[in-house]
């Protein structure tokens, strides 16, 4: 009995382990990868992220638009590696199986929703081969056109050869450049004249040199401009010193003037009080005069007589 129970437990545990290994107990989310070729992709193969398997191909079908739809089951706990910006590639090496890979650059992006559809990029060398071959073919055709007998490059090379041959001739490169002898001679003549001109310019330069020497003597000599200017500058320094002394005196004067004006301000304030007193006195005098006018008999007749 114990034996039977042990075997039953062992068999059940094995089955449970296999179901666990198949991801039977894990909640999953779906992902549909769309590729243009299902070669090498099999049901049950892994989708890897950084080399770790994070999903399993569940089903492969041919869509209505002729594209291959690869359904992938991704366990919920691994789905956090897949974001909306994730990129999926299918890679086929020369040796070994096909690999489905996921790449996520920004892990802060929102997570990939359940049932999302994404295009698969092809990342294998073999797939690029036909394009490469056709490009190489084009390149070879171009090369062939360039190297054929009547090609532009050949003609250019022939011209270059003719030119270099002319250069080797008696007239040299000038003959090759101008094509005829007359022009080449003119150029030679021009060069000779230029030489003569240069010789004259040389003479002129010599004269200019002596002129410059004289001018230097005039300027920097004992009686030169510069010496006199230095003396003038010394005199000017003395003058400036005197001017500074005068200015100092003016400054003192100004200080005195400031003091005077301060006192004047005080005086004007006193003047205000004085004026008020004078006003009061005048009013009293006025009053007094009025009193006297009223009391004295020789007062003016102030009544207005009506006719």
């Amino acid at each position: 009995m114990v034996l039977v129970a042990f075997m039953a437990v062992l068999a059940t545990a094995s089955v449970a382990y296999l179901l666990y290994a198949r991801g039977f107990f894990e909640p999953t989310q779906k992902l549909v990868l769309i590729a243009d070729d299902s070669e090498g992709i099999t049901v049950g193969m892994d989708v890897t992220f950084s080399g770790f398997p994070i999903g399993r191909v569940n089903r492969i079908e041919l869509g209505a638009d002729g594209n291959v739809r690869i359904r992938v089951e991704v366990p919920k706990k691994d789905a956090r590696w897949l974001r909306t910006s994730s990129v999926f590639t299918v890679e086929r090496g020369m040796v070994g199986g096909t690999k489905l890979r996921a790449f996520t650059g920004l892990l802060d992006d929102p997570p990939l929703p359940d049932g999302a559809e994404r295009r698969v990029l092809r990342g294998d060398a073999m797939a690029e081969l036909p394009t490469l071959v056709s490009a190489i073919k084009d390149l070879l055709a171009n090369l062939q056109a360039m190297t054929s007998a009547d090609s532009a490059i050949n003609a250019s090379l022939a011209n270059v050869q003719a030119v270099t041959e002319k250069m080797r001739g008696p007239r040299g490169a000038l003959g090759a450049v101008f094509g005829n002898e007359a022009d080449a001679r003119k150029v030679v003549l021009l060069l000779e004249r230029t030489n003569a001109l240069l010789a004259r310019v040389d003479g002129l330069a010599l004269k200019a040199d002596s002129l410059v020497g004289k001018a230097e003597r005039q300027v920097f000599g004992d009686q030169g401009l510069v010496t006199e200017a230095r003396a003038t500058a010394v005199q000017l320094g003395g003058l400036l010193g005197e001017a500074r002394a005068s200015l100092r005196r003016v400054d003192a004067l100004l200080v005195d003037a400031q003091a005077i004006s301060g006192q004047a301000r005080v005086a004007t304030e006193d003047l205000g009080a004085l004026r008020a007193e004078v006003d009061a006195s005048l009013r009293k005098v006025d009053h007094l005069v009025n009193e006297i006018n009223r009391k004295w008999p020789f007062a003016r007749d102030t009544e207005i007589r009506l006719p």
Partner: protein
Amino acid sequence: MSGIDNFRGGWAATWTRWAGLGGEMRRGGRDAASLLLLAISPSSYRSPYRSEMARQIYLGTAPVLLWFTLLVSLLSLVLIRIVVVTAASYGLSQYALEMVVRVLVLELIPLSAALFVAVRLSLPGFSGVASLHARGEFERLRQRGLDPLRMLVVPRVVGCLFAVPALAVVSGVTALVLAYLVVHGPTPWAFDSYTRRVGHVFSPVVSVVFALKTVGLSLVVALVPFVSALRPRDAGPRRPRAALNPQLRNLVLMFVLILLVELLSLVGNYY
């Protein structure tokens, strides 16, 4: 003319032999079906057959379990080591584990369990039953009111039926553990990736085929010898072939059927 006669005679003989073989197979099939029916009917597990049934199940598995597991472990260890080292030297170590699991757990272990049970249990059982039959034990049981099939044959059949999956499961688990230890060493951190690889191998189809194969092998091993043991010795005209050692005949028939089951499982797994 004599040539044509000879030819006709040869044809006729072959035909008769094939027809005879067909009839024999039909009879064998019928006997096997009745034995199986008895084995799965609950009344065979009730008293007074219960104790004998338990005894045979225990005797069929327990004494050989340890030995067989040790033997398979040793072989597995050698095989795993060879496969892993070879694969690593070719730079294909990522496929080594899958290959080990496929070759050992799926193919070699069930087959060796079946052969082991056949040689160790069912063929000796056949001899025992045949000798009991010859000694008239069956008649004696019948006189005591007991069913000799249920008392003597069915418990042995069930013992064999139980032994094959039991040995296969125990040694399969041992081989998986050994493979883990050989490939990754005594660390728990590779458990997830290992589990994933094992899960990769045991796809639903492969698992069903594996289960069916184990059951098929155990049926072949358990039923073939006992069916022939039930055959009365003097039935039918004595043909020269009947003079062949019955144990050898059983062995050959068993091997042919095991081969058939293996072929079917391979077809199921890889096509």
